């Protein structure tokens, strides 16, 4: 039997202050697929990711994660199936090491505490020195913050990862290191917003948004 899609969106419409940002958008992403969303600024790329996370309530349409409809009730469980990295991650305040360990104090992630042992390996793979963990997160560069956010997302061991221009502040070597890491996780479903050619060549499929309307 064919497994259920990782993410399924049907006729999604999003409006802000009466203006339609997304108009009847649909897509289906299979488990393990690596998909990139591209499109002009303001075409609604980030809005799609934020809708999947339940941070934007659609005007119309339905979102299903692993075959479960996203609602105000199911969103709390469905968020634990996904990890998210924003373009300019705001991870809170404190030392980078504490920021990495914070999500593991949440009840939904208590069973994942063991994965914290992978931090040194992931730091090395993403070309980050270990000393960074003892630095205040506010003192890190944009690229360092993005990599800390990606490490955090990987440690959470979710089936789906949503990335919003997650390497926009990184150089070529660091971007390739991230792509290599994501590529090594065959079962991981990746939905990424990016304009970067390196991401485009990494993907299984590209979805292009044209002015907020359906454009697959």
């Amino acid at each position, binding site marked *: 039997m064919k497994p259920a899609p990782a993410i399924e969106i049907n006729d999604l419409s999003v409006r802000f202050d009466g203006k339609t940002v997304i108009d009847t958008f649909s897509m289906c992403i299979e488990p393990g697929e690596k998909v990139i969303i591209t499109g002009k600024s303001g075409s609604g790329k980030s809005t799609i990711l934020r809708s999947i996370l339940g941070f934007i309530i659609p005007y119309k349409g339905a979102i299903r994660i692993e075959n479960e409809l996203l609602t105000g009730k199911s969103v*709390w469980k469905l968020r634990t199936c996904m990890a998210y990295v*924003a373009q300019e991650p705001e991870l*809170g305040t404190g030392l980078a090491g504490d920021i990495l360990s914070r*999500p593991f104090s949440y009840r939904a*992630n208590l069973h994942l505490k063991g994965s914290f042992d992978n931090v040194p390996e992931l730091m090395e793979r993403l070309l980050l020195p270990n000393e960074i963990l003892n630095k205040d997160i506010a003192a890190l560069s944009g690229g360092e913050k993005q990599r800390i956010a990606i490490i955090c997302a990987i440690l*959470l061991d979710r089936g789906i990862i949503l990335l919003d221009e997650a390497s926009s502040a990184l150089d070529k070597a660091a971007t390739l290191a991230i792509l290599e890491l994501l590529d090594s996780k065959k079962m991981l479903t990746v939905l990424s917003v990016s304009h970067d050619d390196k991401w485009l060549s990494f993907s299984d499929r590209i979805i292009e948004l044209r002015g907020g309307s359906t454009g697959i």
Partner: protein
Amino acid sequence: MIMNITDISPWNLAAGYILFTIPLSIILWLHVPMFTQTIVSILRMTVQLLFVGFYLQVIFRLNNPWLNSAWLLVMIGVADISIIRGCGLKMMKFVLPLFVALIVGTSLPLLSFIGPVLKLPNLLEAQYVIPIGGMILGNCLRADIIGINNFYVSIRKAEKSYLNSLAQGARLREALRPFTGDAFQAALMPTVATMATIGLVALPGMMTGVILGGANPVTAIKYQIAIMIAIFSGTSITVFMAILLTVKNNFNAYGLLDHGIFKK
């Protein structure tokens, strides 16, 4: 050592108003745009206190538990509205939960003060319940404005960080915990600082009142310690409960903050 407090005649009190000419002259001389506001405040202070003075005389004479409780509820209601206005928040979603928080946060330490500490047979004795309730409530008002304002404004400012916690699997309570902690700390800090310097920097109002009333300074100190305990517990309870009870109305099922609660 029992002394009678010297009363102030209306004429002498009126003469005391002459002192206001000094700050008012400085305001005029510096062209500070608060002359009218100051005059209005002086008038309001006079009228409000005269009204309360006459009203309390009646209440103290009748000393009816129901009337005393009703007056306390009126004080809580006024504090409730003042806090919401002070926070720049819309009235509808806060008025009821905050009222409940203020009732619990005021009555619990108040009744502990009058019951187990003072050992008075009548828990609703006007002479005690109204001034002590007012002191607890006055401090709750200041602490709640700081606490509630800090809580909601911080979440609005750090919304990306808050949403990041939700994306990482935090339940609403878990994502709000750091904001609740910060708001609680900000609200209680002034009282903690007051407790640390009390008696060194200034003689507090309660103690001064008891001494002026003719009591022994040691008795005055005991009253002051008891009122500080009541104030600190009262403010802690109201701030914590106010946050806890208002959250339900101001976050939707997805855990998103309703931005419509802010006036601006």
